[in-house]
């Protein structure tokens, strides 16, 4: 009985291997690659990506890309970590840009310099404002794809109600300090509209503000935390005064609530992501516009955000080449324009603005064009740190929270955090 079973299995195995070998010998099958994309299931972003992948697969016969959704940026990062441990990473993936240095340092990503140099790729056309977080130790590891910057939105009607000129949002934080009390609406002790709202107790907005005050967060070699130097302390003290003394700033860690508050007219201005534009466009029932984020002494800074495409090192040269072909196709002017229109993220090529469809789109949505112009003009890459969670965020964010709650002195809180961060970064 077992023998009969065994021989049956043997026959089956030999059949399946021969069946598998015939087409390989007879005709060239496309190289199948797997692309991981951080998205929860469904929605317009998925439809746009599915659309692009389907067109890529039908446009040529050499490569067949399979898109796999991996949840949010955090889940995507964890899945990639475990796939790397298991020795089965995908061929390409999109990652949140702050997560890339850790992978690059560990050698699990493929450098892209050689591919990007090829003339048909036209690397100089990739928007320089979006390349700040693509490099690690001088080598190119990532191409921008799903990119945003911080952005300010203001409620024109709220300015009118406050008796202020309608189209002159505050250009500096001094202006915010001056106009804040007029824009804040109080009923007794209750505040029904704040002048400004944003998640300033997290590193993303704060980092941009530090640059705008002429400072730095991390030393150039990435080994020292310098977010306790004068410009950063001035920026944090200014925020704390707005939040605690003037009570014109609502510091809210909840990203989606900030948009909802703006849409409901509960804030006159919000500092958020350029990605919020489409949500506000569809839902706001008042006149609004985008504007540069109020500036510190060094001018406005719009900090970068979003995801970049990377390729993984552990694969065959054939598959790596196939994955590059996919990236090259995706980041072409027409396709980045297409994704930008469908998703609300920024086009990653300078020449994309010449795309006829995108021009048409900007005529219909002038606010999207204005937002892009602001992003490209004032956009700036983020700090590049090998493990930003461990080296910076775990110390900086609680310090910002404590200072903005009024439970710690800004200088003291930043000094403590910087000392701990420097000890960790220097390891």
């Amino acid at each position, binding site marked *: 009985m077992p023998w009969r079973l065994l021989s049956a299995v043997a026959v089956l195995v030999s059949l399946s291997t021969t069946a598998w070998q015939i087409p390989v010998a007879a005709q060239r099958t496309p190289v199948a690659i797997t692309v991981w994309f951080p998205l929860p299931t469904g929605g317009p972003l998925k439809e746009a990506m599915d659309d692009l992948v389907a067109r890529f697969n039908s446009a040529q016969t050499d490569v067949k890309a399979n898109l796999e959704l991996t949840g949010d940026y955090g889940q995507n990062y964890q899945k990639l970590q475990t796939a790397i441990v298991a020795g089965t990473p995908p061929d390409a993936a999109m990652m949140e840009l702050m997560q890339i240095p850790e992978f690059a340092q560990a050698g699990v990503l493929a450098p892209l310099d050689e591919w990007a140099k090829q003339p048909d790729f036209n690397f100089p056309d990739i928007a320089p404002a979006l390349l700040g977080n693509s490099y690690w130790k001088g080598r190119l590891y990532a191409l921008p794809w799903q990119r945003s910057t911080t952005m300010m939105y203001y409620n024109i009607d709220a300015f009118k109600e406050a008796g202020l000129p309608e189209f002159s949002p505050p250009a500096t934080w001094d202006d915010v300090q001056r106009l804040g009390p007029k824009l804040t609406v109080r009923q007794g002790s209750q505040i029904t509209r704040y002048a400004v709202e944003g998640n300033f107790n997290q590193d993303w907005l704060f980092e941009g503000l530090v640059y705008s005050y002429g400072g730095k967060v991390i030393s150039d070699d990435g080994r020292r935390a310098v977010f306790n130097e004068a410009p950063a302390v001035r920026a944090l003290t200014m925020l704390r005064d707005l939040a605690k003394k003037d009570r014109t700033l609502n510091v809210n860690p909840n990203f989606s609530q900030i948009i909802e508050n703006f849409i409901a007219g*509960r804030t006159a201005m919000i500092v958020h992501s350029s990605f919020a534009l489409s949500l506000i466009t569809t839902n706001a029932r008042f006149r609004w516009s985008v504007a540069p984020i109020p500036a510190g002494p060094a001018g406005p800074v719009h900090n970068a955000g979003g995801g970049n495409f990377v390729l993984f090192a552990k694969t065959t040269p054939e598959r790596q080449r196939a994955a590059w072909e996919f990236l090259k196709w995706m980041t072409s002017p027409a396709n980045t324009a297409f994704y930008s229109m469908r998703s609300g993220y920024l086009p990653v090529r300078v020449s994309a603005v010449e795309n006829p469809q995108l021009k048409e789109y900007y005529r219909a949505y002038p606010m999207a064009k204005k937002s892009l112009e602001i992003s490209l003009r004032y956009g700036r890459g983020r700090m590049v740190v090998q493990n930003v969670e461990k080296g910076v965020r775990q110390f900086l964010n609680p310090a910002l929270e404590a200072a903005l709650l009024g439970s710690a002195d800004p200088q003291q809180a930043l000094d403590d955090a910087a000392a701990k961060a420097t000890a960790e970064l220097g390891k």
Partner: protein
Amino acid sequence: MAGHGSSRWRDALVGYAFLLPSLLPLVLFTLYPLADSGYLSLTKWNLLSPVKQFVGLSNYAAMPRDPVLRQAFANTILYTVTVVPVSVIVGFVLALLLNRPLRLRALWRGIFFLPTVVPIAALSAVWLWIYDPHFGLMNYALQQLHLPTSAWLQSPTSALWAIVLMMIWQTAGYNMVILLAGLQNVPEELHEAARLDGAGWGALLWRITVPMLSPTFLFLVVVSAIQAFRVFDPIYVMTLGLGGPANSTTTLVFHMYRQAFMFLEVGYASAIAYVIVGIALLFTAAQMGLAKRWVTYD
């Protein structure tokens, strides 16, 4: 003799063969990972590197010097000793109320059980709004009642309590259902006999209902204490993955998660995991030991 022995072996083998379908997943997905993380807890490893550096017990030795771990430990204890007893008591009160003949009883039972069925991620969307300091329902209600308001999730002194409150609400319904089942097993004759002897409402509750339900209470307390001790989801979703403000809601498992998947300190995270399991074991053993004094099985 030899024949007898081999047939016993065969019986044992057949027994194991039948066990295999459930034993295999247990070994593969529980025992092996348990042993492996035991080994990992003795190493320094960042998940990505092929090298796992053996460091002996230094991950365990580092724990007393980790201020966030101390805070996480205190938070976890506070969370457990509040959520568990309060949600069991609330569940018991609900069970007593809904065990009486009541109009729309099934509907009420359904309503109180509902929070148990809805995923935490979905509940959090609602509760994040309820707790909004400026525009949320909670502060609005408190204002209407002329009571002091709170920054809830945005203040280090109230954030953990905000989550505790939500989780009492979320788990009480489950406790209610289990206790309702227990209540229906309390023989009505006992109550009848006691009433004939002149026992009042309080005496019936304390002398009959509670002792008869004591095994159910034990089950609920042990199971919910273990669950409370490894609380993660509500912390993650209610603090937007931050465990803040200023680590005020960071629990042991949340700290472990952050060490492993955000800081990539897999060895240290594994050591924390072992300590969590050890404490949960001690906790459960203590409860079972104490239980001998108050649980009756007849």
